[in-house]
């Protein structure tokens, strides 16, 4: 139903602003859904999800701009790379039982490591970044109207929602949530904790990479700061925390609220750099203090 409602949006309004806001909401929701798989369902808080996002964005941009791949063909490659980076980081950290602060740190460090590498290596265009060539046409993942992008990102979000729904209703999802709630008990009843967490980070990484691919195609430009900088990591975690950690619709709701708030503060603080981000930070503190289970959680408890 949600999908149909969003899909009908272009028919109701062809205004570029409205569609752009809807696209950004869905895109933020996609990042949030990806992050939520690992943190909300798996209990592992990553502060460096940009590492997967950037990998996806660069995979799309490099394969397309430097190696001449078709834009759609880069998508599976980017997903696979995102999952691979996730599995690699997961294997390193979960093997030694890194949790909590340690895990947040490791992810942050990897994002930073990748940013420095992307800044210094030739095939990523170094500090200059990569432009994705403008070549309009649906077969090139480039659309003449915003509506095209809206449908694509909507499809991504629906796919991510489907994955999360599956996590809520499958045996694997139950294992993952058991690991989140009590790792030792989960191990005691025979859950392979390492493998379950590894699966979650790979899945989360792949979805995050899809967000990166969409970013690269929509904005047609990638540079190290945009792809691997801390901004994306924070964007990914804010939505689920505001909406409701570990819930199906929390990240979507959070993304909608965030974008509305973003529009509001942008209008309010037009000439004040930083203030709108400051509101995000304050919001994070306030949410954790007063509504630790998010907007959805607060309503559900009543």
């Amino acid at each position, binding site marked *: 139903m949600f999908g149909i409602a969003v899909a009908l949006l272009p028919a109701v309004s062809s205004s570029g602003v409205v569609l752009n806001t809807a696209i950004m909401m869905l895109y933020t929701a996609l990042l949030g859904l990806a992050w939520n798989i690992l943190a909300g369902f798996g*209990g592992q*808080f990553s*502060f460096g999800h940009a590492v997967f996002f950037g990998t996806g964005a660069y995979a799309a941009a490099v394969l397309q701009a430097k190696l001449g791949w078709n834009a759609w063909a880069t998508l599976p490659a980017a997903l696979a790379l995102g999952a691979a980076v996730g599995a690699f980081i997961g294997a*390193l*950290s979960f093997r*030694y039982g*890194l949790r*909590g*602060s*340690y895990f*947040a*740190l*490791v992810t*942050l*460090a990897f994002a*930073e*490591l990748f940013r*420095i*590498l992307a*800044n*210094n290596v030739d095939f990523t265009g170094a500090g200059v970044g990569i432009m994705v060539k403008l070549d309009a046409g649906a077969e090139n993942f480039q659309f003449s109207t915003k509506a095209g992008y809206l449908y694509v990102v909507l499809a991504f979000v629906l796919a991510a929602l489907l994955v999360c729904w599956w996590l809520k209703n499958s045996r694997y999802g139950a294992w993952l949530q058991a690991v989140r709630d009590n790792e030792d008990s989960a191990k005691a009843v025979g859950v392979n904790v390492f493998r379950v967490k590894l699966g979650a980070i790979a899945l989360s990484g792949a979805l995050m990479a899809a967000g990166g691919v969409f970013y690269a195609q929509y904005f047609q430009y990638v540079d190290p700061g945009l792809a691997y900088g*801390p901004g994306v990591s*924070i964007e990914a*975690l804010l939505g689920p*925390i505001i909406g409701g950690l570990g819930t199906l619709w929390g990240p979507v709701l959070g993304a909608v609220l965030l974008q509305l708030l973003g529009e509001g503060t942008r209008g309010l603080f037009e000439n*004040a*750099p*930083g*203030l709108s*981000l*400051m509101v*995000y*930070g*304050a*919001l*994070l*503190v306030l949410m*954790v*203090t007063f509504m*630790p289970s998010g907007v959805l959680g607060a309503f559900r408890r009543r």
Partner: protein
Amino acid sequence: MFELSILWPAFLNGLTTGAVYALIALGLTLIYGVLHIINFAHGAALMMALYGVYYLQKSLGLDPYVSLLVMVPAMFAAGYLAYRYVIGVASHGRDENILLVTLGVAIVLENLALFLFKSDTRTIDTAYTFTTIPIGTAMIALPKIVAFFGAAAAAAILLLIMRATDLGRAIRACARERQGARLVGIDVEHVFAMSFGIGLGCLGAAACFLLPAYYVNPGVGNGFVLIAFTIVVLGGMGSFAGALVGGLLIGVVESLGGLWLGESLGQIGIFLIFIAVLLFRPQGLFGARA
């Protein structure tokens, strides 16, 4: 290979930077040892302290080293209050919450600085900024040498507080066993807030030693925060000796790495150490098994 004439100054420069890193990491490791959380706002707090030193010099003409008398108590008070009224309140007894809150505080501080001070990079001029002192064949800037000894002195004072005062004993008791500490009548929340305050006090001192030979902009904390994390992981979470040795080591690695690979890529050495430590010795050089 490079000649000794290049390596020696790079080594000494790395050592002086490393001493300041060690001081920053001491604050971080103290907070970790007691609260078992990583303070993601550590870099942003350092950035604020650097601005404090900058404006004390610009508006009141206070020498950065005199600012120590203002900045250390000010940062201590800020840390104490921040824990009492923001971080402690938000925790709800869950570590993830503290992580998220310190991240939120970092975002607020960084963007507040961007708003108040703009994104310009600022430096201060002192009479001794360009004074150099020869050590062997190397010419080392005077502020860097002061920073080395100043950071060492601050670290010594911190260790003394931890070893020889009632507060230090209470902090160590809370770090070891917070339930037990509560049972013998220690006000645990107060000790937590004191630890947070002392941790930020270290940053106040670090800022005073850093600024004469360094610069400040709203994003400057990010670089330091990862370096401090690396040091703490390398030395062993919660270990003071580890933070000291780790700080010096990282300072030298960064300096020599920059020599070999260039300024920007040189930082990679730090991350490689970070990952290698996590792989082969996650408890760090001096840490007990986590």
